[in-house]
């Protein structure tokens, strides 16, 4: 099928530099798919973009209710953007619940496109509307357009062979077609995707294509849809881009890290939201020699990884908060064994089951201290979906160079949101090949705990190597020989050596990049996924004449050696975090200063506006 619709006379679209669009519907309405495809065609078109999916926690929340609403927000622009946008300019609401759940986020005067067929009494009641908002004037502050999406989808599908209840499943493609018209997106990338996904001759492909075109054509013919928009391609730095989500970039970072270390990759894991798609992605990449082991629980996930590390693989385990708690004892073992291991925690709102689909950064102190005994571990954090690739490679580098488990902190926002990523040249990626020990290191003897004087790493000799047979274990061990030892002085020495090894990593951390007004009295200090909102908020504040500096910290333990200098002499250090002030607490303890904590614990990322507002308030205070 061709997209001849695109050649139809279209009114000259209004050129806009950016737009935030939110697709919202019942979780069964396919809004994630519509949003993703809209994003993909925008990416192919060359816009800069950032996305934010939002799902209900229950997969089968009652249809039509507020609890069952799923949404996907995309921000596209012709310039370098950072966040998925604070307030949508346009909302597609597939039912009354979707309208009700999202209305309060919209910009004043925003465009609302509704599937009018779903606004019947039953659905209105389920959403808790007493009267129909399309008729009672309550939406007068917005620009509302309606389309009978279900009726038109049914008509469009006549003759495709798809019948009955299955017909309405294509209505998300109707919505996508209509939005493609409104925002002057090409249909071709979506058409190609449909054919590739469902097969050229399949009735489902035919149905989805028919719905897509019907939506597009409805825009052409129906009244009210003639004011269209166009966002021109962004002037991103020259290069080849892909649209990447954080979990996929993390999975690819593990593959690249194993390649850089010249080791086979092993992932032991147990499914948990929002980490699962890393396991799923790696399970697909078997041709890279990746071994994925879906264990019976998180303890076995990390246990199998420890076994694989002992056997000489680059071992990783992926999880979220509840799973990290289960893994704690085994991570302490890996720490004691001094084996490389990458533990990836895709944080979600806790405690307990908390809000599994919502973002939080509240495992920071758990990553720092959540082990028994003296067991410090390096912690690396991921700042954005595109950053996940290199941050993961960095975690692998530290793990293998220093022979230690590393905790890599991601979160649900990074995991599922996406942004354009300028592809690195594979030849230019860092390499850090591991040399396994194959010869005795002390005359004829092999001492498994004799250390490299600089990194304090112990040798890695793997089963199968003749002559280096040795035992490791969780019991305290004698320095150098690794034999079980209970001598008081030895335990103190070993505890200090293990801590000194983590400290040694500090020398390997590159200098902090301070953005904005480097010498400003005000520094915003962030870590992890707050990056985009902080950067955008700081940019806006500076555009409005404020002087602000921003530093985003990747290495959370040990902290970068120059952090003390960066903090020095500031009047206000603002630390925005999606937790109750955990990083602020660490900074206070480490540098004996009093940072200002800005804690948001709502299961949602910061908005750029919120950061800017904090900065405005700080400026008012300083100047008054």
């Amino acid at each position, binding site marked *: 099928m061709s997209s001849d619709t695109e050649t139809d006379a279209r009114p000259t679209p209004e050129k806009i530099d950016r737009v935030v669009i939110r697709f919202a519907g019942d979780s069964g309405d396919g809004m994630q798919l519509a949003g993703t495809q809209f994003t*993909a065609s925008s*990416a*192919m*078109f*060359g816009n800069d973009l950032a996305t934010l999916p939002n799902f209900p926690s229950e997969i089968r929340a009652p249809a039509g209710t507020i609890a069952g609403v799923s949404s996907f927000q995309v921000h596209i622009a012709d310039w370098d953007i950072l966040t998925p946008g604070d307030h949508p300019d346009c909302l597609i609401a597939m039912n009354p619940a979707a309208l009700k759940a999202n209305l309060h986020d919209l910009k004043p005067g925003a465009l609302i496109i509704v599937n009018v067929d779903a606004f019947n009494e039953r659905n209105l009641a389920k959403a808790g509307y007493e009267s129909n908002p399309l008729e009672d004037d309550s939406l007068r502050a917005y620009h509302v357009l309606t389309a009978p999406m279900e009726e038109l989808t049914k008509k469009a599908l006549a003759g495709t062979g798809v019948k009955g209840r299955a017909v309405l499943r294509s209505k998300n493609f109707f919505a996508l077609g209509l939005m493609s018209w409104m925002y002057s997106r090409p249909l071709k*990338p979506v058409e190609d995707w449909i054919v590739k996904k469902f097969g050229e001759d399949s009735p489902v492909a035919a149905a989805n294509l028919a719905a897509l075109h019907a939506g597009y054509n409805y825009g052409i013919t129906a009244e009210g849809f003639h004011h269209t928009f166009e966002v021109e391609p962004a002037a991103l*730095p*020259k*290069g*080849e*881009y*892909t*649209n*990447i989500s954080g979990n996929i970039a993390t999975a690819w970072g593990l*593959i690249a890290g194993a*390649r850089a270390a010249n080791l*086979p990759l*092993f992932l032991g894991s147990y499914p948990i939201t929002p980490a699962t798609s890393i396991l799923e992605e790696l399970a697909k*990449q*078997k*041709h*890279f*020699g990746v*071994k994925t*082991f879906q*264990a019976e*629980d998180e*303890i*076995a996930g990390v*246990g*199998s990884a*420890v*076994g*694989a*590390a*002992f*056997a*000489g*693989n680059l*071992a990783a385990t992926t999880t979220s908060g509840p799973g990290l708690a289960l893994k704690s*004892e*085994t991570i302490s*073992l890996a720490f004691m064994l001094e084996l490389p291991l990458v533990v990836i925690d895709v944080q979600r709102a806790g405690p307990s089951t908390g809000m599994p689909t919502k973002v939080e950064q509240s495992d920071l102190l758990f990553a720092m201290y959540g082990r028994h005994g003296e067991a410090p571990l390096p912690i690396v954090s991921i700042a954005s979906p595109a950053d996940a690739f290199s941050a993961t490679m960095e975690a692998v580098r530290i793990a293998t160079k220093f022979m230690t488990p590393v905790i890599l902190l991601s979160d649900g926002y990074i995991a599922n949101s996406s942004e354009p990523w300028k*592809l*690195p040249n*594979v030849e230019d990626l860092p390499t850090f090949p591991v040399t396994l020990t194959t010869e005795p290191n002390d005359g004829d003897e092999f001492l498994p705990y004799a250390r490299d004087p600089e990194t304090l790493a112990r040798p890695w000799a*793997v*089963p*199968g*190597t*003749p002559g*280096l*047979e040795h*035992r*490791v*274990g*969780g*019991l305290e061990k004698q320095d150098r020989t690794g*034999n*079980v030892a209970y001598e008081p002085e030895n335990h103190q020495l070993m505890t200090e050596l293990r801590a000194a090894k983590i400290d040694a990593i500090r020398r390997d951390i590159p200098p902090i990049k301070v953005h904005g007004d480097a010498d400003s009295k005000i520094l915003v200090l962030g870590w992890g996924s707050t990056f985009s909102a902080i950067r955008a908020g700081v940019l806006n504040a500076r555009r409005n004449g404020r002087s602000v500096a921003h530093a985003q910290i990747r290495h959370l333990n040990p902290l970068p050696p120059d952090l003390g200098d960066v903090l020095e002499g500031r009047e206000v250090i603002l630390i925005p975090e999606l937790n109750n002030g955990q990083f602020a607490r660490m900074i206070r303890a480490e540098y004996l200063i009093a940072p200002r904590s800005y804690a948001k614990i709502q299961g949602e990322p910061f908005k750029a506006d919120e950061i800017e507002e904090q900065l405005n308030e700080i400026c008012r205070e300083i100047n008054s």
Partner: protein
Amino acid sequence: MNIDIKQYTRADFQSDQEVRWCPGCGDYTILASVQTFLAELGIEREKHVFISGIGCSSRFPYYMNTYGMHSIHGRAAAIASGVAAANPDLTVWVITGDGDALSIGGNHLIHALRRNINLKILLFNNQIYGLTKGQYSPTSEQGKRTKTSPMGSIDYPFNPVSLALGAEATFVARTLDMDRKHTAEILAAAAEHRGTAFIEFYQNCNVFNDKAFIELTSRDTRDDNRVYLDHGKPILFGADNEFGIRIGPTGAEIVEVSKVGIDSIQVHNAKDPEPGVAFALSRLSHGPHGPTPLGIFRDVERPVYEDLMVGQIEEAQAQKGTGDLADLLRSTGTWTTN
């Protein structure tokens, strides 16, 4: 067998660490049996890996001059699964106790068994928590008085062989610490078996649960109570083989051969693809009290986890070629700006 392989003696498998079990502990005997067996097995020493949990028995790897890991309580099967999956060329042994394998590590045990990973699991069942000095374990008999059950244990015990058969383990056997000849036979069969081999050792803890297996070990009673299972042979026992096992409508039953005739006696078939009869045999004794089967209950073939894992990697590589990172980064579509 590979003729290049060095001829080993038991000493080659002894580490330089002093063995620290209580004098008289059954663990010594099992250690000696395993070391002697490995010297004869003909697999290079560096290919053996011993992974244990925590417990008296789990100290075992420290005494073996092979690769080894003394890990954490209950997790040996999970860790060993990772070792075996990462490098299928290794021979991976799991050393575990009744508490380690069946309490805290019960989940990992049954999942290793169902996956059929190439592990040789040696469960040292002394029916007590030895290392923590004598609390009842998941194999202790009901009514047992220990420090944590002063009025007698109210826990109903596991029968480890029944449990392993229930998890459809492909190799399930039971032997006795002090019966070194039988132990050697069982170890040989387990080493030969591809997939998970599960061996329950009745192991005497002479400090906290002495004589738990006395009915099988004392000169007066052992002939009447040791029921050896030999593949292809009728299951007979007693000083003069006067007793036998018959599979009746309600399960395995003890019969007098002279009364029922030798033809009614069950001929042991360890290769039976269905675990039902093996399970019935495992129900003969609880405890062990009275006639107790020893030997290989089950030894069947099923695809081995690591083989399937490697097979899928090879299949994927045959279809897609060995992975190319630059292609992967472009696999979901790209665009170029200039």
